[in-house]
């Protein structure tokens, strides 16, 4: 009998578009217009997601194998408000909005993973706000 994990992984492979990038390549850049692939799953390697406020003021979060990133802009608008860069050679699966919602409907773990990812970002920026002089 097929395990829950292998069923979930099959759905990832069915809905995701594989992309390979070299260390230093950008998955997407801040202010770039959104294309169809909006949410990314890391099969291998590491990615850093940055929000640049000025040339020197930046918030960063690191993502590794098994993490999802890129969800922010799915719900927000037409262009990226962060950038994502490969810290190592990476293998990714890219999902469009419909694909992500199918995954979320089929696999609770995907929704929880996305909420975890967003909560980490929120915690980071809240910490940044706290550090600003009142």
């Amino acid at each position: 009998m097929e395990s829950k994990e292998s069923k979930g992984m099959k759905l990832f492979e069915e809905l995701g578009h594989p992309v390979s990038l070299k260390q230093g390549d950008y998955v997407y850049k801040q202010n770039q217009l959104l294309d169809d692939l909006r949410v990314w799953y890391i099969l291998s390697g590491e990615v850093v997601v940055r929000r640049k406020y000025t040339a020197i003021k930046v918030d960063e979060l690191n993502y590794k194998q098994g993490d999802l990133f890129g969800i922010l802009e799915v719900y927000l608008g037409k262009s990226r408000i962060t950038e994502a860069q490969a810290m190592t050679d990476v293998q990714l699966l890219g999902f469009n909005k419909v694909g992500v919602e199918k995954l979320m409907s089929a696999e609770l773990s995907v929704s929880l993973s996305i909420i975890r990812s967003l909560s980490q970002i929120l915690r980071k920026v809240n910490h940044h706000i706290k550090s600003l002089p009142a």
Partner: protein
Amino acid sequence: MKVENHDYDLIKLGFEGEQAITQQLFFKYGKTYEPKKIIVREGDSGKEVYIIISGMVLVTERQHSGQYRVLNRLGPGEIFGEMALLENELRSATLISATDVKLLILAPEQFEQIFQTHPRWAFKIIGALCRRIQSAFTQITNYYTGKSEPI
């Protein structure tokens, strides 16, 4: 307990068509706070997740003076406390009711159960988190670029 339909602000939550479900959940897991009540205290352990049904909640940090500095404002459809649920961390801020507030307070197993039976709630909650992050980004950008924006 009499529940008024208009209290739920369901249009903002986007749960059109799920009103009955939300009322049921409120009977089981709902709580009401009067204004200026501490809902969650920074540094506390706690694994509940809170979903705002109506009213406004202030996200604050306590200063050395004993006063609370407002970091953000949350309204209907917003979620808070989710980080403690997922990462076993202490509460990172103090949340205070700015108005009368109605909340759903969910233990981890209840949170997961609701997601399993109502997966579209995940979309709404994720959307609310995204908007909060965007608002925080804007706040920080405005600070560094010299624009002022009331919180």
